[in-house]
């Protein structure tokens, strides 16, 4: 018996019987056989993998940019210059509603990906529509909050705390706005062009983008609103 035979996964542990992919660990470092893509003779990985990975890198760089804004805000959270603090300004109920909107839209976005996989045009469009409406609702609450703050004289010019608050929350709001524009565009493209490979890749990237926005919002409502409330 050769070493390869002894360490190769036994026959019954095919993909069907191996949900945690343990049987594939053995050959992951050895190139996974000549036919596997990205590992020798198999040629490059499919465009879907490459596009998804590239967009993942972009999202991580976006998160690094957000980290800079978060750091600035966390450092300046107590620099209110005699102006109002977070405890006086923030309304936890509104933040909870915003969070519910964005979290549910992330969920429906995930469902749209499942609908896309089974190539159901109606369900894909419906899930994307709900995602868009929830995203728009989130944006509405955020704009109402900003207008209210500026109206009470707590605009970005009042203190370093409020400058950094408007910078980080506004930056996330701009991302959501861009995401909404992208989402409407994707709905139109799916409607007109159908599930072509390039449209599927764009839907994949949009999915990643929208989930990343929700991840950033989790950090945002924790650092800015909840911990800020306690200051």
């Amino acid at each position, binding site marked *: 018996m050769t070493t390869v035979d002894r360490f190769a996964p036994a026959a019954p542990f095919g993909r069907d019987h191996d949900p945690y992919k343990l049987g594939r660990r053995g050959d992951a470092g050895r190139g996974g056989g000549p036919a596997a*893509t990205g590992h020798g003779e198999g040629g490059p990985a*499919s465009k879907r*993998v490459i596009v998804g990975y590239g967009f993942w890198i972009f999202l991580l760089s976006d998160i690094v940019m957000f980290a800079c804004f978060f750091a600035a805000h966390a450092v300046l959270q107590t620099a209110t210059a005699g102006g109002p603090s977070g405890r006086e300004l923030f309304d936890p109920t509104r933040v909870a509603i915003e969070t519910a909107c964005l979290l549910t839209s992330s*969920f429906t976005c995930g469902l749209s990906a499942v609908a896309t996989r089974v190539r159901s045009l109606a369900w894909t469009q419906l899930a994307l529509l709900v995602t868009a409406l929830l995203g728009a609702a989130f944006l509405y609450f955020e704009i109402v909050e900003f207008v209210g703050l500026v109206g009470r004289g707590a605009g970005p010019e009042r203190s370093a705390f409020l400058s950094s608050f408007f910078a980080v929350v506004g930056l996330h709001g701009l991302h959501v706005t861009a995401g909404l524009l992208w989402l409407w565009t994707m709905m139109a493209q799916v409607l007109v062009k159908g599930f072509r490979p390039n449209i599927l890749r764009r839907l994949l990237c949009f999915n*990643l983008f929208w989930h990343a926005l929700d991840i950033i919002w*989790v950090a945002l409502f924790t650092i800015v609103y909840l911990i800020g409330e306690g200051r």
Partner: protein
Amino acid sequence: MSDRDDAVQRLDTHDVGPGPQVAEEPVRDAILSCVIGFVLAVLLTVGSFYTLNTKAIWDPAIPVALAVLAVGQIGIHLVFFLHITTAPDNTNNVLALAFGVLIVALILGGSFWIMAHLDANMMPMDQLMRMQR
């Protein structure tokens, strides 16, 4: 999807990109994964907002509890929505994520560290103003 893309994707078993997969996972499982992620995220969010107003936690510990809940929820999002797993075919995605986390930790930790020291060592503002006159 063109025949060529289909053929290539069937061979893509050793590297997967982030996001929903095209593998032959049953649709029911994919929906279930979404629902589980959503339910867990909702529980953690409710936990965060509950932690804010509860008297059950010692006050100075609340920010720590909130941070833990947030990190947990980010993990839920990564696993159930972005499908970043520890499977061997995900090595590239996890390594990119690890690098991102490193940079974020350096930026946040470094800022706190430096700014706290600057703050502690800075001349009191009234003295500074007097010197400028």
